[in-house]
């Protein structure tokens, strides 16, 4: 089981980021490392540069939107692909989108970097399942 280091949200939709942060903090506690970015470039540079926790063996959990200006979700995936293995090996990535285009879902699931495709909005239940499946220690949900 993996140890969770930080959680990142890359989405140009601020409201969605706000909701997601709130859900994460409610689930994992207010001191959880949660960062959200409305600009893909900023999100990518955070991933690339903030590697202290990863070097200690902790994982980064990344939620990525698809439809964004400048760099789309697909562009972001390409950039990550070019990053160091040290980063990629410690990354657990989920697409988080309101798209219902079967092409988007297929493209997401076929990508090696992507663990799964999650429909918006992120709920307590879906976050709980991710934590259950991938991370220790077990958490208790308080709703």
């Amino acid at each position: 089981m993996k140890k969770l280091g930080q959680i990142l949200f890359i989405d140009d939709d601020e409201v969605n980021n706000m909701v997601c942060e709130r859900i994460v903090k409610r689930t994992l506690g207010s001191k959880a490392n949660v960062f959200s970015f409305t600009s893909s470039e900023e999100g990518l540079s955070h991933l690339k540069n903030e590697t202290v926790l990863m070097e200690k063996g902790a994982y980064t959990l990344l939620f990525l939107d698809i439809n964004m200006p400048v760099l789309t979700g697909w562009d972001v995936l390409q950039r990550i692909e070019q990053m160091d293995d040290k980063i990629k090996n410690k990354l657990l990535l989920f697409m988080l989108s309101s798209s219902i285009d079967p092409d988007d879902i297929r493209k997401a699931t076929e990508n090696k970097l992507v663990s799964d495709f999650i429909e918006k909005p992120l709920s307590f239940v879906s976050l709980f399942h991710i934590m259950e499946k991938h991370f220790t220690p077990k958490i208790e949900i308080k709703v």
Partner: protein
Amino acid sequence: MIKEKLSYKFLMLNEDADDFTNVQNLLFEKFELPLVIKTSFDKAVDFLTTKDNPFDAILLDLSLTFRKGKHIVTDLLKLAANSPLIILGPINSEKLSETYINQGVSDYLCKEELNSVLLSKSILYAIKNNKLEQKISLTELNLKDSQKAAKVGTWETNLFDFGSIWSDETYRILGANKKVTISSHNEFLKFIYPNDLQLFKTAFSKSINSKQVNLIHHRIVNNLGKIKFVEQRWKIIRDDELNPIYAVGTCQDVTEKTTAQEKASRLEAYNKDILKKISFHIAILNADGEIIATNEAWNKYSIENGEPILEKTGDGSNYFKVCEDAWLSGDMSALEVLNGIKRVANGTSVEYLHEYPCHSPQKKQWFVLKAIKINKDKNILITHQDVTTKKIAEIERERIAYDLIQRNKNMEQFSFIVSHNLRAPLANILGLTEISKLESTNTVELLNIINGMSNAAHKMDDVLKDLNKILHTESQKYDTKEEVDFQEITLAISKDIIKSQRIKIQTNFKEVEKMHSLKSYVYSIFYNLINNSIKYQRPNVKPHIQISSKKTEHGILLKFKDNGLGIDVEKNKNRLFGMYNRFHHNTEGKGMGLYMVKTQVAALGGNISVKSIVDKGTVFNIEFKTSD
């Protein structure tokens, strides 16, 4: 002793026993054991009416008393038609002899002068003569039959008085009655078809001096008014001093033959014409690929395709070699064609079909080659059929099908985009609702949540408004077109959206001032492009927008140029004109502007393209065809 025959049989009519014995003795002198039967006339009837009259000759002793000689002779000639009759008379009279012979009697001998030599000579001569006569009459009969069968009549014309003798068949051909029509040269001329009369007359008078057999064909009109074709052959007979005396000839009815021939030659002419005129290119090859016949269309096509003297694909050239050469020079399908035709030649396949394009700079063409064996000689019929019309229809059908599939895909994509953009704010609302339930949520947070919900609801409303706009645009497509003045439109838009003196719009519509179009579309296109240039201006750079019009080869070119932020065109080419696609952060855009521009330009039958350099500016070129 005469021994030509095993035994001669004679019948002798006489009533005087001494005379009989005398004649019998004379016969025994010259014939070897002849059978001589003595009879009275009444009994003779019984002998002569049997089926096979066995007598080689009949001897009549005219001293008979019970009938007058002449009657007996007449009756005997009738009864014994096949046997010669010799009369033994009481007196030596030349006149009597002549009378009897003319009547049909073979000979008349005077009893007083009778001796064995005279009698035997007379009998033998009579027998021989009788046989000859029989033969001749048989030949005459046969000749009549064959004349009838071959429809050949004979005729003979005396060149002094132009009297003629016609055979029965000649009469039949002319449809003339022997009893009514008296045969003569002039009578014959009456039967000749008027237009052929001169031909016949000329040929006949020319023939008088010729030694050869003359031959002409002409028409006649028979007694029933029917036109017949006849073949005339005749020759001039001359006397010892070479003066012409007769014309003898045959007249053959060739109507059936001529009609059949005419039909056949007409049919052949039709077939030739059809082959000539048919649009298929046709050639016949022998089993070795040698071209043994071609039609007009084939040759015409060859000539048009750079073979002025048919050096490669005309008669006598080899089609297999043509295919091989084409293959060697790189046409891979030529090998396939060659093998296909060879398969037909050796009987492996019944027929071979091959469709191929054959485009010239002038026009596109498609053909179907067909090879099929046509007879036992292993000849192959090659046809090239122009299937361009069919092929074009096929391509058009495929294009329409492709268009429809593409449209369907676009519609599907449209619905995905719309649903995504409706679901995104909906997801916000759902998410906000979820966190609002948390007991730790304080008043400030709750206010934020309500704010977020309100924004999301507005976003959804916007999407629905956009949808309405798109549908409206679609329906406007059929509005009436009018003259749209570019300067006027630009001024109206400036008034609407330009609030700052900093923005400079420069126009040049001198070359083309107006276009016949949908005003609402043109307004929307100008509005969105100007609006984009203002929205995506570079910080600290005074926006400068240049709009101009130009005439092009096919229509009008509109150019929109700005000095704004610019877009990475190479990277975003697939998304640039897509719905709800944005390329800049922190602006109010929602990705509808260029989508609308593209949709409306396309609806007007135009084309839009873009050039841009990031941090320099953007140029949009819109080209409209002015076909209407």
